[in-house]
């Protein structure tokens, strides 16, 4: 009998016990795990089902955009920006154009500003429907995702009509838009305004007051406003924690001051609040799109800035000035003045900033992208500490970390 190994609870209290070793499991979440929705790794230390600590490894799709940008003429940098947050590329593109316009003091006509607002708000909707419906998928509700995916397709069709591309849009030009809104585009936008609300209402019906969804998301991955500020949160994630900071309202750009919309805020900063804030933001974005398309001003869709905006192709064949400008712009012969600028727009995930230093050359001397995902994702271990693995997945999903923006 003496050889029988005793189970822990059968060990007499006064027995000589070996030193207990730390028994934590190391779990690799990622880099290519379907639940992380992107290429990044989390090395989690688990105590049974509970997460004790986590360490992130990022940079799997780092493409050195900031280095590449130091060699490219200004207009060629646009194609780098839309590969950052690829769920809402037009915001990145137009944000970069607005930075350069502010830097070169180019006045953009009202019509172009309104078209930009329409495209940026559609991009915000497409960003948020993906985030919210994927959150549904992660809690086990796949159906809603399929419903709204169809609507994102319609938004992509509008992009296609406006700029010719769907994902990496390269939308707009320095000084305005590359072409006017076609009648097809206007029809598609109006159709979208009509057909989107019922679909969004259906998604809300599926999730908002769903007992299972609420149990899975309320008080999961919560962060206080103080911590969120310290961690540099912006956008929907900060607003869910209760602070109403929105670049569109605080530093209006592209005529945002003309539109009537409100900023939804949450209270607890948890997954449910982030979901609800994004949900309400889609309604507000739709409201902005509706106002902009109904009040679309007449007039030119590009600025009178021949040094920066490509002349019409017919003119290039007929007029000497147009030919010269065309050549200079395409070859990147346009020098920008020396100086520095920081400009921010409200991206899908928060304040998307561009810090550009020019030494007077044809390419930036230094270009730094303030990428919201990169900055707030470092709070993730703190947010999922002590929660179970399945809750940590939801926390990550509701933060809407986009790998392209994370790594740049």
């Amino acid at each position: 009998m003496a050889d029988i190994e005793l189970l822990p609870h059968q060990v007499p209290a006064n027995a000589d016990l070996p030193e207990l070793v730390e028994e934590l499991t190391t779990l690799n979440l990622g880099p290519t795990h379907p639940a992380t929705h992107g290429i990044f790794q989390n090395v989690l230390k688990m105590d049974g089902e509970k997460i004790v600590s986590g360490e992130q490894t990022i940079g799997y799709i780092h493409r050195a955009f900031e280095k590449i940008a130091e060699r490219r003429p200004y207009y060629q940098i646009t194609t780098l920006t839309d590969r950052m947050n690829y769920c809402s590329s037009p915001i990145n593109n137009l944000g970069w154009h607005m930075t350069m316009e502010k830097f070169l003091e180019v006045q953009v006509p009202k019509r172009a500003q309104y078209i930009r607002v329409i495209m940026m708000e559609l991009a915000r909707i497409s960003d948020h429907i993906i985030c919210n419906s994927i959150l549904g998928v992660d809690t086990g509700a796949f159906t809603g995702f399929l419903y709204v995916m169809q609507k994102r397709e319609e938004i992509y069709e509008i992009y296609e009509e406006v700029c010719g591309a769907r994902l990496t849009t390269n939308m707009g030009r320095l000084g305005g838009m590359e072409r006017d809104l076609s009648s097809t585009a206007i029809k598609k936008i109006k159709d979208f305004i009509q057909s989107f609300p019922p679909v969004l209402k259906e998604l809300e019906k599926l999730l908002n007051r769903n007992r299972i969804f609420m149990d899975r998301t309320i008080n999961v991955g919560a962060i206080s406003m103080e911590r969120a500020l310290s961690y540099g949160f912006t956008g929907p994630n900060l607003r869910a924690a209760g602070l109403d900071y929105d670049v569109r309202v605080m530093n209006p750009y592209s005529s945002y001051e003309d539109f009537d919309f409100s900023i939804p805020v949450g209270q607890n900063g948890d997954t449910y609040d982030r979901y609800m804030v994004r949900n309400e933001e889609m309604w507000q974005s739709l409201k902005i799109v509706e106002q902009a398309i109904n009040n679309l001003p007449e007039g030119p869709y590009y600025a009178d800035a021949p040094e920066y905006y490509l002349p019409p192709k017919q003119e290039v064949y007929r007029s000497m000035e147009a030919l010269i400008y065309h050549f200079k712009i395409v070859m990147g012969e346009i020098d920008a003045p020396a100086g520095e600028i920081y400009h921010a727009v409200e991206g899908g995930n928060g304040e998307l900033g561009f810090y550009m230093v020019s030494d007077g050359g044809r390419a930036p001397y230094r270009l730094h992208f303030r990428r919201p995902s990169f900055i707030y994702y470092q709070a993730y271990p703190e947010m999922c500490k002590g929660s179970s693995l399945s809750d940590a997945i939801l926390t990550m999903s509701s933060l809407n970390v986009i790998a392209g923006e994370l790594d740049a």
Partner: protein
Amino acid sequence: MLSNQEVAEELLGKFGSQVFDFEEPYGMLTLSTTREEILSVLEFLKEHSHFQVNFLTDLTGIQYPDKQGQEFMVVYHLHSFIHNFRVRIKVSIPEADIHIPTATGLYACANWMERETYDFYGILFDGHPNLKRILNIDEMDYFPMRKEYPLEDATREDKIDALFGR
């Protein structure tokens, strides 16, 4: 609404000649300070009961290889939500002694931003809890954003920089 003048005067009164090179490019108050004073300046702005500049928007580095003794620069962008006031603070450091104190004690988000700056430029943030590469691989033995590493193969003769970029 906070004016640049007001903040600049307050900073000058507190730090004297330790804050210098005041500018206003595109309306944003820009100033320089020394690495000895940077943490005090950040803390002063953060704890100031009226200014409340308590949000670190961005932190990044720049290299100026031709400036003797000031080859590297760390740039902080700060924001006060209460007044909607932004300020940019620059600190120059020499290549021979490439150290600057970390801001992680004041702002949690400085952690990754400083790691990124270290990864790109090799700027050492003293007191940083986990200063290692973030975007590039750990085995990398150089700092890729430095100007001495050209983007294209420098031995190529078919592409002339004067025609095709820098």
